[in-house]
C-alpha cells in the first residue's frame, strides 16, 4: 500500500500556519523579554504619542495607530491573544463534546436524554447572542471569555462525537471487546477516543478558526476582554478609515490570513482522510 500524497491545500495551510506560529513565538519572546509582560505591552495611555505615523517611518515598521502604538506590536499581541483563546476554547469544547457524546450513546437512559436535550438547546440557541448576554453578566476578562465561548461552543463537537461513537460501537471488534468484558471506561479510552479522533481533528481545526472569528466579533462589539483583541483593534482603526485606510487593511488581511490558513488545512485534511478520494 502506498501512502497517499498530501494535497496542495494541506501544504499551503501548514505553511501559512507555521508562519503565524513562528510570528507568535517571536512576539511572545519579544513581549516577555523587552516589555516584561505577556499580554499587555502598553500600560494604559502611558506610551501615548497622540500621533499617527505611516508605515516605514522612524522606528515603526508598519506605523502606529491613533494612540501612537506600534501596529506591529499590536498585531503580535493580538495574535497571541487570538491563538490562546482559540486553542484553549477548542480544547475545552472538544473535551466536553467527547464526554457528552459518549454519555449520550453509552450512558444511562436518563443521562442520555439529559445530554441530548442540553446539546440541542444550546445548539439552536444563537451562539453569539448567548455569549453577549453571558459576557454582560460576568464582565470582560480573559477567563470569562474562554469560559463563555466554551460553554456556547461545545454542542457541535458533542453531535459529531455522538455520531462517531455510535458508528464505532457498532463495529465488530467492539463487540468482541464487550464479550471479553471490557469496562465502559476502558472502552472509552482504548476504543472510542482513538476511533473518533480522525473525524474530530478536522472539525477541531475548523473549530479554532470559528472561535477566533467569534472572539474577534465580540472584541469588535467591545466585549472582547482585551484591548488587544484583533476585533477591538479593528473597530478602533475603523474610526480613521478615511485618514489611514491602510490600518484597517492590515488588520483585516492579517486576521483573514490566519483564518484562511486554518480553513485550508481543515479542508485539505477532510479530502485527505476521505476514503473515496
Amino acid at each position, binding site marked *: 500500500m502506498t501512502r497517499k500524497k498530501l494535497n496542495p491545500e494541506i501544504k499551503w495551510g501548514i505553511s501559512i500556519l507555521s508562519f503565524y506560529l513562528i510570528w507568535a513565538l517571536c512576539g511572545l519572546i519579544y513581549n516577555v523579554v523587552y516589555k516584561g509582560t505577556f499580554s499587555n505591552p502598553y500600560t494604559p495611555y502611558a506610551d501615548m504619542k497622540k500621533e499617527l505615523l505611516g508605515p516605514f517611518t522612524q522606528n515603526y515598521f508598519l506605523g502606529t495607530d491613533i494612540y501612537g502604538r506600534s501596529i506591529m506590536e499590536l498585531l503580535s499581541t493580538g495574535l497571541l491573544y487570538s491563538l490562546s483563546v482559540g486553542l484553549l476554547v477548542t480544547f475545552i469544547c472538544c473535551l466536553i463534546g467527547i464526554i457528552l457524546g459518549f454519555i449520550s450513546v453509552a450512558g444511562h437512559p436518563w443521562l442520555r436524554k439529559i445530554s441530548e*436535550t442540553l446539546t440541542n*438547546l444550546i445548539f439552536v440557541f444563537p451562539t453569539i447572542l448567548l455569549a453577549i*448576554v453571558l459576557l454582560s453578566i460576568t464582565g470582560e476578562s480573559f477567563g470569562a471569555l474562554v469560559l463563555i465561548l466554551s460553554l456556547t461552543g461545545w454542542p457541535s463537537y458533542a453531535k459529531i462525537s455522538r455520531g462517531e461513537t455510535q458508528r464505532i460501537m457498532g463495529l465488530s471488534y467492539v463487540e468482541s471487546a464487550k464479550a471479553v468484558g471490557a469496562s465502559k471506561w476502558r472502552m472509552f479510552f482504548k476504543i472510542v477516543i482513538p476511533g473518533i479522533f480522525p473525524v474530530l481533528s478536522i472539525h477541531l481545526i475548523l473549530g479554532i*478558526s470559528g472561535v477566533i472569528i467569534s472572539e474577534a*466579533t465580540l472584541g469588535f462589539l467591545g466585549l472582547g476582554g482585551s484591548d488587544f483583541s484583533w*476585533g477591538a483593534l479593528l473597530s478602533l482603526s475603523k474610526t480613521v*478609515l478615511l485618514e489611514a485606510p491602510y490600518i484597517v487593511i492590515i*488588520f*483585516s488581511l492579517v486576521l*483573514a490570513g490566519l483564518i484562511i490558513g486554518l480553513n485550508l488545512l481543515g479542508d485539505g485534511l477532510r479530502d485527505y482522510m476521505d476514503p473515496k478520494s
Partner: protein
Amino acid sequence: MRKLLNAFFTILMALILVFSLMRLSPGDPVERILGPNATEKEIQVYREQLGLDKSFPVQLSQYLIGVVKGDLGVSLFKKRSVVELLKEHFVPTAIIAFLSVFLSALIGPFLGLYSALKKSRVQDSIIRIISLALLSFPIFSLAPILVLIFSIKWGLFPVSEWGGLDHIFLPVLTLVLPLGSILLRVSRNRFLEEINEPWVQVLHAKGLKERGIHLRVAKACLPTVLTVIGIQLSIVIAGTMITETIFDIPGIGTLLLDGIQNRDYPVVQGIIIYSMLVYMIIYFFFDYLGEKIDPRLKMTYDT
C-alpha cells in the same frame, strides 16, 4: 408532530434561560432610565410601575402567560410594545436578508456546479481559492474594505444611511460574498460526492447523455443546498448585528444590541422568541421542500 413538540419545548427552555440570565446580570434598568440623580423613592415607585418589584417566579409566569396571548410586553426604554418594535425593525432586516440570501442562492450553486464540472482545472482552482478567501474574511473586516473601495475610492455608494435603494447595495454585498462562497463550496463538494454514486454509473451504462446525467445529479444535490440556504436565511433574518451596526441599519440586530446594552429585558426576550420561531419555521419549510424533491431523505429520517 414529535418534532414540533420538541421545538416548542426548546423555545420554552431558551426563554426561561434568557429570562433568568438577564435578571442575573448586574446593571439595573430602572437606575439607567432615571439617571444618577434619582432618589431611592423615585426608583422604588418606578420599579413598581414596571412590575419589576415582584418576585422572580411571579414575573416569569406573568411573562409566559403574556407570550401565549401574543403580548411580548413593553420596552422599558422606548415605552412601546415589543411586538410593534419588532414589526418596525423587521422591515430593513427582511429586505437585506431576503435579497442577500436570494442573490447568493442564485450565484453560489451555479458557480459551484461550474467549478465541479471543471474539476482540477485552472477555473476550478481560481474559484476555490477566491471563495475560500472570501469566506475567511469576518464580516466586520470585509465591510470596511468594501466601504473603502466602493464609497471612498470610487464614491459610488453612501456609507451609513438608511433609505434609498443605493443604501442597500453595500450591506447586501457584504453578506452575499461570504454566504455565496459557502453555498458555492457546499454545492461543489456535494456534486462531486454524488457523481460517484452507483446510480449515476447505471445512468452511464444506460447510455444517457452527459448533460442529462449532470442535471439529475444536480437535482439530487438540491436538498443539501436547500438546507444550507435555509440555515443561512434563518441566521441572517434573525438580525445581522455586525452588518447592521456598521451600516447603521435600523434592523433587528441593532435593536438587540441596544436592548442588551440597556438591560431592556422585554426587547431581548422578544427577539429571542422571534429568532427561534423564525428558525423553526424556516427549518420545517426547507425540510419539507427537501423531502418533496428527494424522497430518499424521508426514509432515512424514519429509522
